[in-house]
């Protein structure tokens, strides 16, 4: 059941988590550049360490500026709390290590951001955590891949690179039938377009580096807990949350807080020990972006729609992957799960293969050629010559892309200028292929 919001999303994006500070009355969120916090007394210090009093001890574990960002995103996403991390990757790692250790198993969508795929496919097996990848639309495959040692299902709200829309209500039902939680990477949608917790997911992560910040100046991540998963009822699958932890006062986190046990363990162990905390400067910069999230995401969507319409009608374009098009396999659920639009990132394939892709990219002048998404400025990349350079055409096809695929992250510029730039690239392809 979705959490009731106490204000509209645009209001929460501006105010949630922050009240003007009582000392100086500063309206903006102050940047608390401090590693540590003065104790009032020995008793106060001991009480903070033993979690008898609320407050900050050391900025690796919590920081007042970071707390504003955490509380703002939790309020927007409908979560019971959030933890700010050094990056989206750190948020994913924190979620996984809070739930399982060696011997754990994850079922994940195979349409993932490359960094997430690397972590799950290559790095975590070294630590005894295995992942089975499944096609995100194949519900039977999700179900069949679940094992007794499965501790998490994981997918992206909008998959990479084909923009597969995760049917979160259906996959959440599969997860819950098996007694495990569903984690959704909502980076490409942000709370402005979809809140996966409202659709049945238990945990959400964001790479705040992308649309939440929106300016491309700060790396950061967020892990949000919906507070909906009953860890105690999961038949002993989550001993990290339901058994005494010698590393923190023998605390049984689910006993301490049946609702926020996951966040307690993640902060008290994961941030403390792995140390992937967010700089308060980055938290401040991301907060500046979040303030205008709703306005920006609407513009991203509008611009993406304009570019898609232009490209879909162009003779040099083989296909456009965009869930709002009838041709996309997820067109039917796009209206249900992403009624306000499918974000600002999409891909299209040029006729002419790998060389056409390279030619197109090099002719662009307004789009920036780089490996990121979610900037206010428009971005473009040709996977076959960059991120997927070593892959054969067959391997590219298996990953859902072609040699001529271009991924665009639509920015906030005037759509006419972006279209003019795309036409510059298309004209270059035309010249090159008609020689």
């Amino acid at each position, binding site marked *: *059941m979705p959490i*009731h919001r*106490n204000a509209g999303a645009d209001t929460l994006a501006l105010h949630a988590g922050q009240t003007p500070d009582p000392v100086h009355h500063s309206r903006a969120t102050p940047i608390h550049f401090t590693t540590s916090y003065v104790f009032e007394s020995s008793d106060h210090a001991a009480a903070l360490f033993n979690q008898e009093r609320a407050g900050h001890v050391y900025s690796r574990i919590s920081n007042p500026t*970071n707390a504003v960002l*955490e509380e703002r995103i*939790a309020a927007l996403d409908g979560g019971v709390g959030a933890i700010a991390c050094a990056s989206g990757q750190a948020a994913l790692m924190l979620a996984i290590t809070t739930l399982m250790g060696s011997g754990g198993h994850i079922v994940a969508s195979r349409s993932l951001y490359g960094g997430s795929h690397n972590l799950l496919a290559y790095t975590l097996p070294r630590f005894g955590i295995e992942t089975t990848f499944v096609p995100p639309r194949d519900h039977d495959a999700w179900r069949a891949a679940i094992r007794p040692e499965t501790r998490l299902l994981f997918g992206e709200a909008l998959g990479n690179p084909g923009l597969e829309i995760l049917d979160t209500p259906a996959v959440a039902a599969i997860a819950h039938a098996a007694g495990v939680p569903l984690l959704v990477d909502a980076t490409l949608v942000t709370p402005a377009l979809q809140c996966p917790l409202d659709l049945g997911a238990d945990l959400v992560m964001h790479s705040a580096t992308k649309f939440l910040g929106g300016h491309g100046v700060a790396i950061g991540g967020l892990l949000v807990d919906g507070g909906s998963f009953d860890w105690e009822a999961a038949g002993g699958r989550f001993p990290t949350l339901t058994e005494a932890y010698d590393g923190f006062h023998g605390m049984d986190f689910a006993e301490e*807080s049946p609702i926020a046990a996951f966040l307690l363990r993640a902060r008290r162990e994961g941030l403390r020990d792995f140390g992937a905390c967010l700089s308060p400067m980055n938290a401040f910069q991301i907060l500046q972006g979040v303030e205008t999230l709703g306005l920006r995401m609407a513009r991203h969507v509008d611009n993406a729609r304009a570019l898609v319409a232009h490209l879909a009608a162009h003779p040099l374009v083989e296909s456009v992957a965009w869930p709002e098009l009838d041709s996309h396999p997820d067109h039917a659920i796009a209206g249900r799960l992403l009624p306000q639009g499918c974000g600002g990132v999409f891909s299209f394939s040029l006729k002419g293969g790998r060389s056409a892709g390279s030619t197109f990219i090099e002719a662009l002048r307004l789009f920036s050629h780089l490996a990121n998404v979610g900037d206010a400025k428009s971005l473009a990349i040709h996977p076959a010559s960059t991120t997927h350079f070593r892959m054969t055409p067959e391997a590219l096809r298996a990953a859902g892309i072609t040699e001529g695929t271009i991924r665009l992250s639509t920015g906030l510029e005037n759509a006419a200028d972006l279209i003019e730039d795309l036409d510059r690239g298309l004209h270059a392809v035309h010249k090159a292929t008609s020689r």
Partner: protein
Amino acid sequence: MKITLASHDCYCYTGGRRPEPGRPTAVFVHGAGHDHSVWTLQTRYFASHGWNVIAPDLPGHGASAGPALASIGELADWLLDLLAALDATDVTLIGHSMGSLIALQAAATAPARIARLALVGSVVPMPVAAPLLDSTLSNRDAAHAMINQWSYTTASRLGASSVPGLNLTALNERLMQRQAAGVLHRDMAACNAWSGGFDAAARVACPVLLLASAQDRMTPPKAMAPLAGAFTGGATVSRVILPDAGHAMMAEAPGAVLDALWQFARSPARTAQDSA
């Protein structure tokens, strides 16, 4: 810790430490639709400072089995049975909202067994607005939203939190959702129906703390006056009003609530036995 009481499992949070013989006991009683976890920050401090802590999940709440009891009198009797089963001594009884009514009735029923009584967010009588009481039966989601609207300050409802990174109203909503169907309605109906508050107050013999919050719209401080004047049986009454919190003051101002309770708990006790 779990014990069996009246043939049902009863869960009691103990503040992270096992009770030891010979220590004073602080008993924390939660309110309607809640469980022990609303007292987390206060209980842990008492437990690490020489007190035994008992924060039960009331019957049918949290991890305690059995049907939710239908009246404040039944709940008070159940609480006294629990204290007897645990052989609790030198008891400081602390209750929030509905829990404060249970504590008040228990202190009146067994004045010799209660050394101090702290009523947090308490008024007598405690009528429940008809739209809220109806919603607990017909639309729990709406009831949860109303409770949050009236229990938290504007800052908390806009996501600010005393505990870094938490969304307090969402946490409370999930906690209420976690309780079994019918529990919230039974609790609210018990509060609404209880008419024994003034009689109970007159029989209380121990020191009393009335702890309120200035921004409480569920049990506003100005409505506390009739209760404060009803302790005519010799109890000394002290009042503390916290400026920056609402009805959910244990979450919104956990340090201030703890400080008030801790100061009160260390004040001299006087029981009916002392005065006899």
